[in-house]
Protein backbone atom coordinates (compact mmCIF):
# COMPACT_ATOMS: atom_id res chain seq x y z
CA UNK A 1 0.00 0.00 0.00
CA UNK A 2 1.26 3.42 -0.98
CA UNK A 3 2.59 5.59 1.90
CA UNK A 4 2.88 9.35 2.22
CA UNK A 5 6.19 10.94 3.31
CA UNK A 6 7.23 14.53 4.05
CA UNK A 7 10.96 14.93 3.39
CA UNK A 8 13.49 17.76 3.52
CA UNK A 9 16.47 17.96 1.20
CA UNK A 10 19.29 16.96 1.11
CA UNK A 11 18.18 13.32 1.32
CA UNK A 12 19.97 10.75 3.47
CA UNK A 13 20.45 7.03 2.84
CA UNK A 14 17.88 6.43 5.56
CA UNK A 15 15.33 8.60 3.75
CA UNK A 16 15.93 6.59 0.57
CA UNK A 17 15.62 3.24 2.31
CA UNK A 18 12.17 4.16 3.60
CA UNK A 19 10.79 4.84 0.12
CA UNK A 20 8.97 2.29 -2.02
CA UNK A 21 7.71 2.55 -5.60
CA UNK A 22 4.20 4.03 -5.48
CA UNK A 23 4.80 6.13 -2.34
CA UNK A 24 3.82 9.79 -2.45
CA UNK A 25 6.47 12.26 -1.22
CA UNK A 26 6.12 15.97 -0.44
CA UNK A 27 9.59 17.48 -0.83
CA UNK A 28 10.72 20.70 0.85
CA UNK A 29 14.06 22.52 0.71
CA UNK A 30 16.61 23.14 -2.00
CA UNK A 31 16.58 21.21 -5.29
CA UNK A 32 18.54 21.87 -8.50
CA UNK A 33 17.34 21.98 -12.11
CA UNK A 34 19.22 20.45 -15.03
CA UNK A 35 18.30 19.19 -18.50
CA UNK A 36 20.36 17.54 -21.27
CA UNK A 37 22.99 20.24 -21.88
CA UNK A 38 23.62 20.91 -18.17
CA UNK A 39 23.92 17.17 -17.48
CA UNK A 40 26.59 16.83 -20.12
CA UNK A 41 28.58 19.66 -18.53
CA UNK A 42 28.26 18.19 -15.00
CA UNK A 43 29.53 14.79 -16.17
CA UNK A 44 32.42 16.47 -18.03
CA UNK A 45 33.39 18.29 -14.81
CA UNK A 46 33.36 15.02 -12.86
CA UNK A 47 35.50 13.29 -15.49
CA UNK A 48 38.00 16.16 -15.42
CA UNK A 49 37.95 16.12 -11.59
CA UNK A 50 36.79 19.75 -11.46
CA UNK A 51 34.49 21.37 -8.92
CA UNK A 52 30.73 21.18 -9.52
CA UNK A 53 28.45 24.26 -9.32
CA UNK A 54 26.54 22.65 -6.40
CA UNK A 55 27.23 19.81 -3.93
CA UNK A 56 25.93 16.47 -5.25
CA UNK A 57 25.92 14.76 -1.86
CA UNK A 58 22.27 14.04 -1.01
CA UNK A 59 21.10 16.33 -3.81
CA UNK A 60 17.87 16.15 -5.79
CA UNK A 61 17.88 17.19 -9.46
CA UNK A 62 14.68 18.27 -11.21
CA UNK A 63 14.53 17.77 -14.99
CA UNK A 64 12.74 20.96 -16.04
CA UNK A 65 12.94 23.84 -18.51
CA UNK A 66 10.55 26.46 -17.09
CA UNK A 67 8.70 29.24 -18.92
CA UNK A 68 10.02 32.78 -18.29
CA UNK A 69 8.78 34.29 -15.00
CA UNK A 70 6.27 37.13 -15.06
CA UNK A 71 7.52 40.30 -13.34
CA UNK A 72 7.67 39.80 -9.56
CA UNK A 73 7.47 36.00 -9.70
CA UNK A 74 10.40 33.62 -9.05
CA UNK A 75 9.63 31.28 -11.96
CA UNK A 76 7.03 30.55 -14.62
CA UNK A 77 5.33 27.21 -15.21
CA UNK A 78 7.64 24.39 -14.24
CA UNK A 79 6.54 20.79 -14.75
CA UNK A 80 8.86 17.86 -15.47
CA UNK A 81 10.37 17.03 -18.85
CA UNK A 82 10.84 13.48 -20.22
CA UNK A 83 13.69 11.82 -18.34
CA UNK A 84 15.19 9.27 -20.75
CA UNK A 85 17.35 11.97 -22.32
CA UNK A 86 19.31 12.12 -19.03
CA UNK A 87 19.77 8.32 -18.83
CA UNK A 88 23.34 8.34 -20.13
CA UNK A 89 24.41 10.89 -17.49
CA UNK A 90 22.42 10.00 -14.35
CA UNK A 91 24.43 6.89 -13.26
CA UNK A 92 27.65 8.96 -13.01
CA UNK A 93 25.90 11.58 -10.87
CA UNK A 94 24.32 8.90 -8.67
CA UNK A 95 27.77 7.33 -8.15
CA UNK A 96 28.93 10.73 -6.91
CA UNK A 97 26.20 11.24 -4.33
CA UNK A 98 22.99 12.25 -6.15
CA UNK A 99 20.03 10.84 -4.19
CA UNK A 100 16.97 11.91 -6.10
CA UNK A 101 15.84 12.77 -9.62
CA UNK A 102 12.47 14.27 -10.54
CA UNK A 103 11.11 13.86 -14.07
CA UNK A 104 8.53 11.94 -16.06
CA UNK A 105 8.68 8.80 -18.18
CA UNK A 106 10.72 5.62 -18.29
CA UNK A 107 14.39 5.25 -17.23
CA UNK A 108 16.77 2.63 -18.62
CA UNK A 109 18.19 -0.37 -16.77
CA UNK A 110 21.53 1.37 -16.03
CA UNK A 111 19.73 4.12 -14.10
CA UNK A 112 17.60 1.59 -12.18
CA UNK A 113 20.72 -0.45 -11.36
CA UNK A 114 22.55 2.65 -10.13
CA UNK A 115 19.57 3.55 -7.88
CA UNK A 116 19.78 0.09 -6.34
CA UNK A 117 23.55 -0.04 -5.96
CA UNK A 118 24.12 3.48 -4.59
CA UNK A 119 20.72 4.06 -2.92
CA UNK A 120 18.93 6.69 -4.92
CA UNK A 121 15.36 7.11 -6.18
CA UNK A 122 13.64 8.37 -9.31
CA UNK A 123 10.54 10.44 -8.61
CA UNK A 124 7.78 11.19 -11.10
CA UNK A 125 6.08 14.58 -11.02
CA UNK A 126 2.86 15.15 -12.94
CA UNK A 127 3.72 16.16 -16.50
CA UNK A 128 1.60 19.01 -17.77
CA UNK A 129 0.87 20.33 -14.28
CA UNK A 130 3.32 23.20 -14.80
CA UNK A 131 1.10 25.94 -13.38
CA UNK A 132 0.42 24.00 -10.17
CA UNK A 133 4.05 22.88 -9.70
CA UNK A 134 5.50 26.30 -10.56
CA UNK A 135 3.50 27.82 -7.69
CA UNK A 136 5.19 25.50 -5.19
CA UNK A 137 8.60 26.89 -6.13
CA UNK A 138 9.18 29.75 -3.70
CA UNK A 139 12.61 30.91 -4.88
CA UNK A 140 14.62 30.37 -8.04
CA UNK A 141 18.15 31.49 -8.84
CA UNK A 142 20.35 30.66 -11.82
CA UNK A 143 23.62 29.31 -10.37
CA UNK A 144 25.39 28.11 -13.54
CA UNK A 145 25.30 28.14 -17.35
CA UNK A 146 23.01 31.17 -17.71
CA UNK A 147 23.70 31.10 -21.46
CA UNK A 148 21.65 27.90 -21.73
CA UNK A 149 18.43 29.85 -21.07
CA UNK A 150 15.66 27.43 -19.98
CA UNK A 151 18.38 24.77 -19.66
CA UNK A 152 20.55 26.70 -17.15
CA UNK A 153 21.13 25.19 -13.69
CA UNK A 154 18.81 26.79 -11.17
CA UNK A 155 18.67 26.45 -7.41
CA UNK A 156 15.02 26.18 -6.35
CA UNK A 157 13.46 26.33 -2.93
CA UNK A 158 10.32 24.22 -2.91
CA UNK A 159 7.59 23.65 -0.34
CA UNK A 160 5.65 20.40 -0.23
CA UNK A 161 6.44 19.62 -3.85
CA UNK A 162 4.35 16.51 -4.72
CA UNK A 163 6.16 13.58 -6.36
CA UNK A 164 5.61 9.83 -6.63
CA UNK A 165 8.36 7.21 -6.27
CA UNK A 166 8.72 5.48 -9.66
CA UNK A 167 12.02 3.60 -9.19
CA UNK A 168 13.08 2.86 -5.62
CA UNK A 169 16.41 1.55 -4.26
CA UNK A 170 15.08 -2.02 -4.28
CA UNK A 171 14.67 -2.43 -8.02
CA UNK A 172 10.89 -1.81 -8.10
CA UNK A 173 9.33 0.11 -10.99
CA UNK A 174 5.88 1.71 -10.58
CA UNK A 175 5.38 2.03 -14.36
CA UNK A 176 5.72 -1.75 -14.75
CA UNK A 177 3.82 -2.71 -11.60
CA UNK A 178 0.98 -0.22 -12.07
CA UNK A 179 0.45 -1.24 -15.65
CA UNK A 180 0.46 -4.98 -14.83
CA UNK A 181 -2.25 -4.36 -12.27
CA UNK A 182 -4.65 -2.67 -14.73
CA UNK A 183 -3.78 -4.41 -18.01
CA UNK A 184 -6.62 -6.42 -19.55
CA UNK A 185 -5.46 -9.48 -21.47
CA UNK A 186 -7.80 -11.33 -23.84
Amino acid at each position, binding site marked *: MSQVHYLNTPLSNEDIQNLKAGDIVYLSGIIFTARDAAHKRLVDLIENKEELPFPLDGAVIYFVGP*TPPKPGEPIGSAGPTTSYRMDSYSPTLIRHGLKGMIGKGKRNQEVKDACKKYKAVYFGATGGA*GALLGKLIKEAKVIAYEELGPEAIRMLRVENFPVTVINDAYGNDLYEEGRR*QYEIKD
Partner: protein
Amino acid sequence: MREIAYDDIVKAVKNMVIHTATNLPKDALDKLKEAYEKEKSPVAKKVLEQLLENADIARKEERPLCQDTGLAVYFIKVGQNVKITGGLLKDAVNEGTERGYIEGYLRASTCDCFTRENLKEKIGYNLPAVIHIDLVEGENIEIEYAAKGGGSENVSRARVLAPAQGRQGVIDFVRDVISEAGPNPCPPIIVGVGIGGTFEKAAISSKYALFREAGKPNPDPEVAEFEKELLYELNKLGIGAMGMGGTQTVLAVHIEKNPCHIASLPVSVNVQCHSSRHSHITL
Protein backbone atom coordinates in the same frame (compact mmCIF):
# COMPACT_ATOMS: atom_id res chain seq x y z
CA MET B 1 -13.38 40.52 -52.99
CA ARG B 2 -13.29 40.97 -49.22
CA GLU B 3 -10.15 42.59 -47.81
CA ILE B 4 -8.52 41.45 -44.55
CA ALA B 5 -5.61 43.49 -43.17
CA TYR B 6 -2.27 41.93 -42.24
CA ASP B 7 -2.30 43.69 -38.87
CA ASP B 8 -5.72 42.26 -37.99
CA ILE B 9 -4.40 38.75 -38.60
CA VAL B 10 -1.33 39.43 -36.43
CA LYS B 11 -3.48 40.71 -33.57
CA ALA B 12 -5.99 37.84 -33.74
CA VAL B 13 -3.24 35.20 -33.83
CA LYS B 14 -1.36 36.83 -30.94
CA ASN B 15 -4.47 36.87 -28.73
CA MET B 16 -5.31 33.27 -29.60
CA VAL B 17 -1.77 32.09 -28.76
CA ILE B 18 -1.79 33.76 -25.34
CA HIS B 19 -5.32 32.59 -24.47
CA THR B 20 -4.66 28.98 -25.52
CA ALA B 21 -1.53 28.61 -23.34
CA THR B 22 -3.48 29.22 -20.14
CA ASN B 23 -7.03 28.05 -20.93
CA LEU B 24 -7.62 24.35 -21.42
CA PRO B 25 -10.52 24.20 -23.89
CA LYS B 26 -13.86 22.82 -22.71
CA ASP B 27 -13.66 19.61 -24.76
CA ALA B 28 -10.31 18.61 -23.23
CA LEU B 29 -11.43 19.62 -19.74
CA ASP B 30 -14.67 17.62 -20.02
CA LYS B 31 -12.71 14.54 -21.12
CA LEU B 32 -10.36 14.88 -18.13
CA LYS B 33 -13.32 15.18 -15.75
CA GLU B 34 -14.89 12.09 -17.30
CA ALA B 35 -11.59 10.19 -16.89
CA TYR B 36 -11.38 11.30 -13.25
CA GLU B 37 -14.89 9.93 -12.61
CA LYS B 38 -14.18 6.61 -14.32
CA GLU B 39 -10.62 5.92 -13.10
CA LYS B 40 -10.26 2.91 -10.79
CA SER B 41 -6.63 3.34 -9.70
CA PRO B 42 -6.26 5.66 -6.68
CA VAL B 43 -2.75 6.73 -7.80
CA ALA B 44 -3.97 7.67 -11.30
CA LYS B 45 -7.03 9.39 -9.83
CA LYS B 46 -4.72 11.57 -7.76
CA VAL B 47 -2.84 12.55 -10.93
CA LEU B 48 -6.10 13.44 -12.71
CA GLU B 49 -7.12 15.53 -9.71
CA GLN B 50 -3.83 17.45 -10.01
CA LEU B 51 -4.46 18.02 -13.72
CA LEU B 52 -7.92 19.47 -13.04
CA GLU B 53 -6.49 21.69 -10.30
CA ASN B 54 -3.69 22.73 -12.66
CA ALA B 55 -6.20 23.77 -15.32
CA ASP B 56 -8.03 25.82 -12.73
CA ILE B 57 -4.86 27.61 -11.52
CA ALA B 58 -3.70 28.22 -15.09
CA ARG B 59 -6.99 29.86 -16.07
CA LYS B 60 -7.45 31.94 -12.94
CA GLU B 61 -3.84 33.13 -12.63
CA GLU B 62 -3.03 33.23 -16.34
CA ARG B 63 -0.09 30.86 -15.95
CA PRO B 64 0.84 28.51 -18.81
CA LEU B 65 -0.76 25.08 -18.31
CA CYS B 66 2.57 23.43 -19.06
CA GLN B 67 6.15 24.73 -19.30
CA ASP B 68 6.34 23.11 -22.73
CA THR B 69 4.27 25.74 -24.49
CA GLY B 70 4.90 23.87 -27.71
CA LEU B 71 5.61 24.62 -31.30
CA ALA B 72 2.78 26.60 -32.90
CA VAL B 73 0.89 24.52 -35.48
CA TYR B 74 -1.80 25.98 -37.74
CA PHE B 75 -4.32 24.67 -40.26
CA ILE B 76 -5.64 27.66 -42.19
CA LYS B 77 -8.54 27.71 -44.65
CA VAL B 78 -8.46 30.77 -46.87
CA GLY B 79 -11.62 31.67 -48.78
CA GLN B 80 -10.96 32.24 -52.50
CA ASN B 81 -12.70 35.61 -52.32
CA VAL B 82 -10.36 37.05 -49.69
CA LYS B 83 -7.61 39.53 -50.42
CA ILE B 84 -4.97 40.00 -47.73
CA THR B 85 -3.65 43.55 -47.65
CA GLY B 86 -0.39 44.82 -46.20
CA GLY B 87 1.67 41.64 -46.28
CA LEU B 88 1.79 37.86 -46.60
CA LEU B 89 -0.49 35.52 -44.63
CA LYS B 90 2.42 33.36 -43.45
CA ASP B 91 4.35 36.39 -42.21
CA ALA B 92 1.29 37.63 -40.32
CA VAL B 93 0.81 34.26 -38.63
CA ASN B 94 4.50 34.05 -37.69
CA GLU B 95 4.47 37.61 -36.34
CA GLY B 96 1.34 36.95 -34.29
CA THR B 97 2.93 33.76 -32.96
CA GLU B 98 6.14 35.51 -31.93
CA ARG B 99 4.32 38.36 -30.23
CA GLY B 100 2.00 35.97 -28.42
CA TYR B 101 4.87 33.84 -27.12
CA ILE B 102 6.81 36.91 -25.94
CA GLU B 103 3.91 38.86 -24.42
CA GLY B 104 2.40 35.74 -22.83
CA TYR B 105 5.71 34.79 -21.13
CA LEU B 106 5.72 31.50 -23.02
CA ARG B 107 8.80 29.40 -23.76
CA ALA B 108 10.83 29.68 -26.96
CA SER B 109 11.35 26.03 -27.92
CA THR B 110 12.59 26.04 -31.52
CA CYS B 111 16.23 25.10 -32.08
CA ASP B 112 18.64 23.96 -34.77
CA CYS B 113 18.42 20.19 -35.36
CA PHE B 114 22.10 19.50 -34.79
CA THR B 115 23.71 22.37 -32.89
CA ARG B 116 20.58 22.56 -30.68
CA GLU B 117 21.05 26.34 -30.60
CA ASN B 118 17.82 28.17 -29.70
CA LEU B 119 16.59 30.09 -32.76
CA LYS B 120 14.93 32.99 -30.93
CA GLU B 121 17.64 35.41 -32.10
CA LYS B 122 18.31 34.06 -35.59
CA ILE B 123 14.74 33.38 -36.78
CA GLY B 124 12.41 34.66 -34.08
CA TYR B 125 10.98 33.81 -30.67
CA ASN B 126 9.54 30.26 -31.02
CA LEU B 127 9.59 30.61 -34.82
CA PRO B 128 8.99 29.33 -37.38
CA ALA B 129 5.41 28.20 -36.81
CA VAL B 130 4.25 25.10 -38.69
CA ILE B 131 1.59 26.35 -41.12
CA HIS B 132 -0.69 24.30 -43.39
CA ILE B 133 -2.78 26.39 -45.80
CA ASP B 134 -5.77 25.27 -47.84
CA LEU B 135 -7.77 27.32 -50.35
CA VAL B 136 -11.55 27.00 -49.95
CA GLU B 137 -14.79 28.66 -51.03
CA GLY B 138 -16.01 31.87 -49.43
CA GLU B 139 -14.69 35.14 -48.08
CA ASN B 140 -13.37 34.23 -44.62
CA ILE B 141 -10.11 33.04 -43.17
CA GLU B 142 -10.49 30.23 -40.66
CA ILE B 143 -7.44 29.63 -38.47
CA GLU B 144 -7.18 26.47 -36.38
CA TYR B 145 -4.32 26.44 -33.88
CA ALA B 146 -2.62 24.01 -31.52
CA ALA B 147 0.37 24.45 -29.21
CA LYS B 148 2.06 21.09 -29.69
CA GLY B 149 4.43 19.82 -27.00
CA GLY B 150 7.55 17.76 -27.65
CA GLY B 151 6.93 14.74 -25.41
CA SER B 152 3.92 13.49 -27.32
CA GLU B 153 5.46 14.23 -30.74
CA ASN B 154 8.48 12.12 -29.77
CA VAL B 155 6.40 8.94 -29.54
CA SER B 156 4.40 9.53 -32.76
CA ARG B 157 5.09 7.12 -35.65
CA ALA B 158 4.20 6.48 -39.31
CA ARG B 159 4.46 3.31 -41.38
CA VAL B 160 3.29 2.07 -44.75
CA LEU B 161 1.68 -1.34 -44.23
CA ALA B 162 1.13 -4.01 -46.86
CA PRO B 163 -2.51 -3.92 -48.09
CA ALA B 164 -3.02 -7.50 -46.89
CA GLN B 165 -2.41 -6.40 -43.29
CA GLY B 166 -5.71 -4.51 -43.52
CA ARG B 167 -7.76 -3.30 -40.59
CA GLN B 168 -6.10 -5.68 -38.12
CA GLY B 169 -2.69 -4.44 -39.23
CA VAL B 170 -3.74 -0.89 -38.38
CA ILE B 171 -5.02 -1.96 -34.93
CA ASP B 172 -1.76 -3.80 -34.18
CA PHE B 173 0.40 -0.88 -35.32
CA VAL B 174 -1.51 1.72 -33.28
CA ARG B 175 -1.50 -0.54 -30.21
CA ASP B 176 2.27 -1.12 -30.50
CA VAL B 177 2.94 2.62 -30.79
CA ILE B 178 0.87 3.49 -27.70
CA SER B 179 2.16 0.53 -25.70
CA GLU B 180 5.78 1.42 -26.40
CA ALA B 181 5.11 5.10 -25.57
CA GLY B 182 3.89 4.14 -22.07
CA PRO B 183 4.21 7.07 -19.64
CA ASN B 184 6.32 9.30 -21.92
CA PRO B 185 3.65 11.30 -23.86
CA CYS B 186 1.84 12.40 -20.64
CA PRO B 187 -1.27 10.23 -20.67
CA PRO B 188 -4.23 10.30 -20.67
CA ILE B 189 -3.73 11.06 -24.35
CA ILE B 190 -5.72 11.73 -27.50
CA VAL B 191 -4.66 9.55 -30.42
CA GLY B 192 -4.84 10.93 -33.97
CA VAL B 193 -4.71 8.27 -36.67
CA GLY B 194 -4.27 9.06 -40.37
CA ILE B 195 -5.05 6.13 -42.61
CA GLY B 196 -4.54 6.04 -46.37
CA GLY B 197 -3.41 8.70 -48.82
CA THR B 198 0.31 8.88 -49.47
CA PHE B 199 3.02 8.82 -46.80
CA GLU B 200 2.79 12.56 -46.04
CA LYS B 201 -1.01 12.67 -46.44
CA ALA B 202 -1.33 10.04 -43.69
CA ALA B 203 0.98 12.04 -41.39
CA ILE B 204 -0.81 15.36 -41.96
CA SER B 205 -4.20 13.67 -41.53
CA SER B 206 -3.10 12.22 -38.17
CA LYS B 207 -2.10 15.72 -37.05
CA TYR B 208 -5.33 17.26 -38.31
CA ALA B 209 -7.31 14.55 -36.46
CA LEU B 210 -5.99 16.05 -33.20
CA PHE B 211 -7.57 19.41 -34.04
CA ARG B 212 -11.06 17.90 -33.83
CA GLU B 213 -13.19 18.45 -30.73
CA ALA B 214 -12.12 15.70 -28.31
CA GLY B 215 -14.35 12.63 -28.64
CA LYS B 216 -16.43 13.93 -31.54
CA PRO B 217 -16.87 10.93 -33.84
CA ASN B 218 -15.84 10.90 -37.50
CA PRO B 219 -18.94 11.68 -39.65
CA ASP B 220 -18.51 8.36 -41.51
CA PRO B 221 -20.29 5.77 -39.30
CA GLU B 222 -17.85 2.99 -40.26
CA VAL B 223 -14.85 5.11 -39.31
CA ALA B 224 -16.61 6.19 -36.11
CA GLU B 225 -17.10 2.53 -35.23
CA PHE B 226 -13.38 1.90 -35.80
CA GLU B 227 -12.56 4.82 -33.48
CA LYS B 228 -14.66 3.22 -30.73
CA GLU B 229 -13.02 -0.15 -31.26
CA LEU B 230 -9.51 1.31 -31.08
CA LEU B 231 -10.36 3.33 -27.97
CA TYR B 232 -11.49 0.15 -26.23
CA GLU B 233 -8.38 -1.76 -27.36
CA LEU B 234 -5.96 0.94 -26.23
CA ASN B 235 -7.52 1.38 -22.81
CA LYS B 236 -6.89 -2.31 -22.17
CA LEU B 237 -3.15 -1.51 -22.02
CA GLY B 238 -3.51 -0.33 -18.39
CA ILE B 239 -0.97 2.51 -18.74
CA GLY B 240 -3.12 5.06 -16.87
CA ALA B 241 -2.54 8.74 -16.09
CA MET B 242 1.20 9.57 -16.28
CA GLY B 243 1.84 5.85 -16.82
CA MET B 244 1.32 4.92 -13.18
CA GLY B 245 -1.21 2.23 -14.04
CA GLY B 246 -4.93 2.73 -14.57
CA THR B 247 -7.98 2.28 -16.71
CA GLN B 248 -7.97 5.74 -18.37
CA THR B 249 -5.06 5.86 -20.83
CA VAL B 250 -6.71 7.25 -23.95
CA LEU B 251 -9.38 9.99 -23.81
CA ALA B 252 -10.34 9.73 -27.49
CA VAL B 253 -9.26 8.22 -30.81
CA HIS B 254 -9.76 10.38 -33.90
CA ILE B 255 -9.32 8.77 -37.31
CA GLU B 256 -9.04 10.53 -40.67
CA LYS B 257 -9.32 8.06 -43.56
CA ASN B 258 -8.31 8.74 -47.18
CA PRO B 259 -8.30 6.69 -50.37
CA CYS B 260 -4.85 5.22 -51.03
CA HIS B 261 -2.70 3.68 -53.79
CA ILE B 262 -3.55 0.11 -54.83
CA ALA B 263 -0.09 -0.97 -53.59
CA SER B 264 -0.07 0.69 -50.15
CA LEU B 265 -1.74 1.09 -46.77
CA PRO B 266 -0.12 4.10 -45.04
CA VAL B 267 -0.91 4.69 -41.39
CA SER B 268 0.30 7.44 -39.09
CA VAL B 269 -0.21 7.84 -35.36
CA ASN B 270 0.13 11.33 -33.88
CA VAL B 271 -0.19 11.56 -30.11
CA GLN B 272 -1.57 14.50 -28.14
CA CYS B 273 -0.83 14.82 -24.41
CA HIS B 274 -3.67 15.47 -21.94
CA SER B 275 -2.99 19.22 -22.22
CA SER B 276 -4.77 19.50 -25.57
CA ARG B 277 -4.33 23.22 -26.15
CA HIS B 278 -6.15 24.15 -29.33
CA SER B 279 -8.54 26.79 -30.57
CA HIS B 280 -9.84 28.41 -33.75
CA ILE B 281 -10.90 31.79 -35.03
CA THR B 282 -12.69 32.98 -38.12
CA LEU B 283 -11.77 36.32 -39.65
